[in-house]
């Protein structure tokens, strides 16, 4: 390396100047979070501890501590370049991870990389996520309810016993007094008397009406709905174990009314590398390939896939399934179990990608819609996610623990309204809310401790119905 002192000096002055000028562009974990989500989260786990398509990023700084910081920057900007140059650390990583190639980020500045490092550090050293507590205490409640019902039943029995005792005592007292006591009815007679029966019917009618009304109101709601999907997609694996950010796949949530069900090409971002699943092997992931027209054997997208006959498609994917079967079972030829496996998997692919309206295998994966609002309701994800800064789990529950996705919330109007009554508006730092001058004054003077969605008109009809 040439060591022209002038060059070095001028470079270091430049570097110094650069540092001075970029002082105001301080790296921050907040910025790092955004950058991480947009650039890294596709392949790297956001918990920074577990590997995903790419390695876990926790401890990156320590791993690179033996080399100059610039090497790390260079690695992030253009890893393949460094591998080609034969950098020892680069080679080490490449040998471990090839053929997975890290996408180059040539435009990323040093500050941005530092921000990401800060964020990685922060996430890596964070205590395990606090479990979202929505719905917590329900166990508690149900056990109490059980207690109440038991108490109620005991009291009923006691009162019937007491009532009988009082009746008997009265009877005895009357006999003792020499009077002729009224004829004493048996318990059975009392319960089948006209009065008791009418009372019972009355209670039943009331209960019936109550039940009809309650069920009528809930008509069409489907809390807990967990239909079978064309692909046995597990949120527990993707969002839970692998820790993929919700909004990596549901990328509409931050900018649209729809959270958006990811298109097959989004799946392919990872599944070009992950071709076989941990639970179902090739059975489920091949469905994605068959939908979009990707041949996993050759690692290429199939040209004019839409025009291929079903037999051709079948040949492509059964071959892949066969190969994988053989590869995992140390056999050289398909046995009867293997044949059955291939047949079943292919039938699964076919039945998942076709239905009464769609006869061809190529084309979109038609998922079963779970969350569905009536047509006269407008709900906007970006309002809640980007502006309101709500966590997805608040309405969707612990999706990262769901093997089969189910509707967590009732999605009823009462449920929406309740939340609007309680939720605080994210006033701070958003210039838009300057329009609410009086609230700002009241907050400042302490007359008011918070502004809820209700306070800015969140319960009005035309916020959602138009």
């Amino acid at each position, binding site marked *: 390396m040439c060591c022209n002192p002038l060059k070095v000096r001028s470079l270091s002055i430049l570097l110094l100047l650069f540092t001075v000028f970029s002082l105001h562009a301080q790296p921050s974990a907040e910025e790092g979070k955004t950058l991480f989500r947009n650039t890294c989260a596709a392949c790297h786990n956001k918990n920074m501890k577990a590997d995903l398509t790419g390695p876990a990023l926790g401890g990156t700084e320590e791993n690179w501590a033996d080399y100059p910081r610039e090497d790390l920057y260079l690695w992030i900007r253009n890893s393949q370049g460094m591998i080609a140059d034969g950098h020892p650390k680069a080679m080490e990583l490449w040998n471990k991870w090839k053929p997975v190639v890290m996408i180059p980020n040539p435009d990323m500045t040093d500050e941005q990389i530092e921000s990401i490092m800060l964020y990685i550090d922060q996430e890596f050293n964070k205590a395990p996520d606090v479990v979202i507590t929505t719905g917590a205490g329900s166990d508690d409640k149900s056990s109490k309810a059980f207690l109440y019902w038991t108490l109620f039943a005991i009291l009923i029995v006691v009162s019937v016993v007491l009532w009988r005792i009082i009746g008997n005592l009265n009877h005895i007292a009357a006999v003792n007094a020499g009077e002729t006591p009224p004829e004493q009815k048996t318990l059975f007679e009392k319960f089948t008397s006209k009065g008791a029966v009418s009372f019972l019917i009355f209670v039943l009618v009331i209960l019936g009406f109550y039940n009809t009304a309650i*069920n009528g109101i809930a*008509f*069409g709601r*489907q809390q807990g*709905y967990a*239909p079978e999907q064309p692909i046995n997609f597990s949120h527990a694996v993707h969002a839970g174990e692998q820790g993929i950010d919700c909004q990596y796949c549901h*990328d*509409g949530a931050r*900018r*649209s*009314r*729809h959270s*958006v*069900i*990811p*298109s*097959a*090409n*989004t799946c392919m971002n990872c599944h070009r590398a992950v071709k076989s699943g941990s639970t179902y092997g090739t059975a489920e992931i091949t469905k994605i390939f068959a*939908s*979009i027209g990707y041949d996993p054997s050759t690692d290429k997208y199939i040209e004019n896939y839409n025009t291929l006959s079903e037999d051709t498609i079948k040949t492509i994917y059964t071959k892949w399934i066969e190969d994988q079967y053989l590869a995992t079972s140390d056999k050289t030829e398909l046995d009867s179990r293997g044949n059955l496996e291939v047949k079943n998997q292919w039938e699964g692919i076919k039945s998942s990608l076709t239905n009464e*309206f769609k006869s061809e295998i*190529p*084309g*979109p*994966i*038609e*998922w*079963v*819609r779970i969350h*569905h609002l*009536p*047509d*006269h309701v*407008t709900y*906007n994800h*970006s*309002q809640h996610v*980007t*502006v309101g800064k709500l966590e997805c789990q608040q309405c969707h529950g612990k999706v990262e623990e769901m093997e089969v996705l189910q509707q967590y919330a009732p999605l009823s109007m009462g449920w929406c309204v309740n939340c609007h009554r309680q939720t605080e508006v994210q006033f701070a*730092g*958003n*210039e*838009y809310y*300057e*329009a*609410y*001058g*009086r*609230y700002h004054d009241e907050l400042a003077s302490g007359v008011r401790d918070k502004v809820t969605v209700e306070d*800015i*008109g969140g319960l*009005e*009809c*035309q*916020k959602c*119905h*138009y």
Partner: protein
Amino acid sequence: MKAEQNGTWVGDKDLTQDPDFMEYSHKEFNEYLPLVDSLGDNRSIEVGASRRDFLKYLGFGLGAATIAAGCETPLKRAIPYVIKPDTIVPGVATYYASSIVNGGDFCSVLVKTREGRPIKVEGNDMSGVTKGGTSARAQAFVLSLYDTDRFRGPKKKEGDAFVDASWDDIDAAVKGKLNSRSQIRIVTGTVMSPTAQKSIDEFTAKYPNAKVISYDPISSAALLRANGTDFGIRAVPDYHFDKAKVVVGIQADFLGTWISPIEYAKDYVENRKIKDAHKPEMSRHFQIETYMSLTGSNADNRVQVKPSQVGSSIVYLYNAVAAKTGGSRVRGGDVPSEIAKALDKVAENLNAHRGESLVVCGTNNTAEQTLVNAINHLLGNYGHTLDFGAVNYMRKGDESELISLLHDMQEGKVDAVFVMGCNPAFDMPFGNTFAEALAGVDLSISTALTEDETTAACKYAAPAHHLLEAWGDAEPKKGHYGLIQPTIAPLFDSRQMEESMLVWAGSENLDVASEQPYYEYLKKSWEADLFPSSGESSFRAFWDKCLHNGVYEVAPTHAEITFSGDVNAAAGKVSVVKASEHEITFFETVAVGSGNSANNPWLNEMPDPVTRCAWGNYLAVPLTWNGVNAFDGLNGLEDGDLADLTIGENTERVPVIKQFGQMQGTVAIGLGFGRTKGGRAGTGVGVNVQKWLTTDDEGLMQYITSGAQVSDKQGKEEFYSAVQYHHTMGVKGIDKATQEVINADEAATVFNTYFGAVKQGPQGSLVERSIIRRANLADVEGFVHDLVHEREHHQHLNDQSIYAGYKELYEEGHHWGMHIDLNACTGCGACAVACIAENNVPVVGKEEVSRHHEMTWLRIDRYYYGDVENPSVVYQPMMCQHCDNAPCENVCPVNATNHSSEGLNQMAYNRCVGTRYCANNCPYKVRRFNWLDYTAADLWPINERGIDADADVPWAADNLTRMVLNPDVTVRARGVIEKCSFCVQRLQEGKLRAKTEMRSLRDADVKSACQTACPTGAITFGDTNNKKGDLNKKLSSPLNYIVLEEVNTDASVNYQARIINKDIDA
């Protein structure tokens, strides 16, 4: 009846206190239930119900509910893209800059698409031609994309009917039958596109005997010819209405239909807006015309002439101007003294504004156009208010060649005819003969999208793409280029018209193998012609910029001109329509134009701004005061009567409307109706009057004629669909018993006079309704004084509110409001159609309109005032006023309509139970009730797949038409009330945009659909709490008033009073 009226009136019935009209004017709904009585037998609905029926339905209902509850919830699917395009985020609209070229109309637009479906057009601010304005036709254009009558693919004739064919069949047929000796005729409208012209040129180069015949359905050929001979430039000049202090229109409806109405309206209104009420200034507009046009209704002074007097009036005006400016006088110009007097005034005004006046003429007579050119020349207007720099290319056609084509076809001299997107068999008076002759031609191909009259006579149908699916360009004015880009993949197996032309020409420049051959061709064309002078570094950059902007404009070149017209010869050749008892004018209507939009239900249902008639053309007849109690129509005809109209040998039975401002001895009727093959919505609507058009010596189409005979009443029209007496407000009447003036609208309130207090309301406020406030320019100062005083009075009356404390709430956050400048509103109806498109407002059809059931959220009320013989007109867009003390809200038994903290009068459709109390209680009559299932929202098979229409489903229930629906707005079902929401979906979207970007709300975030559609900027919407916003600037004008302010509704819509600049001596 005295000629001058103090108040305003809607029609003759309220002017004369017609008892029937007075009787029902206070009723919101003019008919009694049950509805079944008024529905025909074919529409049986069970309405009446006995107790037994009730129990039956109850039992069935419970049973059905039980069964339904036991059923599984239907499976709903969520279908993502396979490969999501980067530009599309589901749920977020994407806009594409494009242009609409339809007939002779041009409009530069942004097309709003949702999930790949075009659903709305907005004006494009970057265009130097339309400057962000739109028209009713442009707004309705998006619906024609989803026309169920469109061809699904190429067709060939077998016997009398079209059968499916392939493009190869057609190409083979064309190439097989044509050779270099073939006599080919290409019939087209004005070709505005330079690249389409290239493709035609390639075709004619290949086939030397091919000849292009271009014509305009409503012709301006005389104007072109006159400019050709007088100046050597055969083009429509560039008019600058914004530079004219005096505008004179002669038979030219330049605000409604003539050549480039969006552009002209925008420029014209620049000089009509009162910018400073204390120093008011505005232009003066004279209109000389034979019928009440939209432009005439906006004029300050209207000079009524008969068709037989048009030619001589122009000669007279020329002579009058020549006398003042030193020009040579010509012979002729004999006009009656009252017209002479009026024209002298016009000339006087013109002379006082030499170089800043403008005379435009819409007649189709070369000599008349030459005289008008001479007038402008004498006044020195060339180079100032009109010039030949950026000349207009929207009209280039000459229909005289069609007649020779007809003869050639009849004589068998023509081997092939290509009909390129025009419909001569309907447009021309000899249409039927033309179609017969065309059927005899060996090879005939039409590129029309639907099977129209001309296509039906062709051997092949080679349907072109709809413009929203196609690539293209346009040059509406010299140096102003508009790009057309597809906003959706072609719905059907159609092919770009230009591509067909190039394929048939066997062009080497067309790369047939590429994915979009014409796109490549278009790019090459722009790269060769426009890119070199653009100064951009690369063609890619240039192209991307043009595609983004939708327009590319180069500075106009200055054209030196010399006038060489022969006025003496011209004076002898002006049109001579023989005077007769009834003379007639045929005019282009604002809505359906020449008839090419006849299959568009939005336009059919849009009432004509002047006659207020929807679904059909009505014969406008003059009316006369009978001296006792009524205005009699011609021959005793009343509105909605049928009469026989005879001209020459043809007689048609036409419905009649009594039209104020229609001169005695004249009648008028609209063109473009009575299509025989107009499609599902267009066929049989109105009467075809094209057959009565005549040609002059030069072969040019004439739109005025004489010798019309109008019979007396021949019956009643079954469904009389004029809306002028629908939803009236502020009608004053005389109480028969007391002879006192009362409010007929709210008779119930007024008759309730137990305490003697109510009657006319405090200070007569119940009868002196503030609906229209207007003044003449000369009286503005006094008017402002009175208006301010009056408003103070109203506010004093209403300062006691039972809603005290609410004002404080409205000051937080936003409070929406609107301002409408009645001086800027020309009544063109663009806003009304935009509202329909934005808000999924249903089309109800002629029968329902006749029963007052039109659903429009925004109507444009037209009021007359002044001289009964020749009244002035004011247009008032009327929609929900979003009253802060809304009378509708507190009568709703279920609280379905209530107020928001942002000042919106909210309507929750799913809560509405249809009592209609609110509509009854609305003083502005803006609430609409879904009497029937207009949107077919209640139909079951709504989830059927495929976009093909099923013949059995009603209009708008098919999946193709439903693609036009705005997914942000609920489709309302039967039995609920609806009304203007101030485009709340746009407000929510705009607020969210501001929140997401963490900034204050800007005016640009929240614009209502009517506001963006308006070509003249008459409507301003905004947040009244935004002190720096546009709205608050407008709200400071002392000319503002609130409609019905005296009744304390506290409305959020302000109107700016109508000021006209009438020459009162004229």
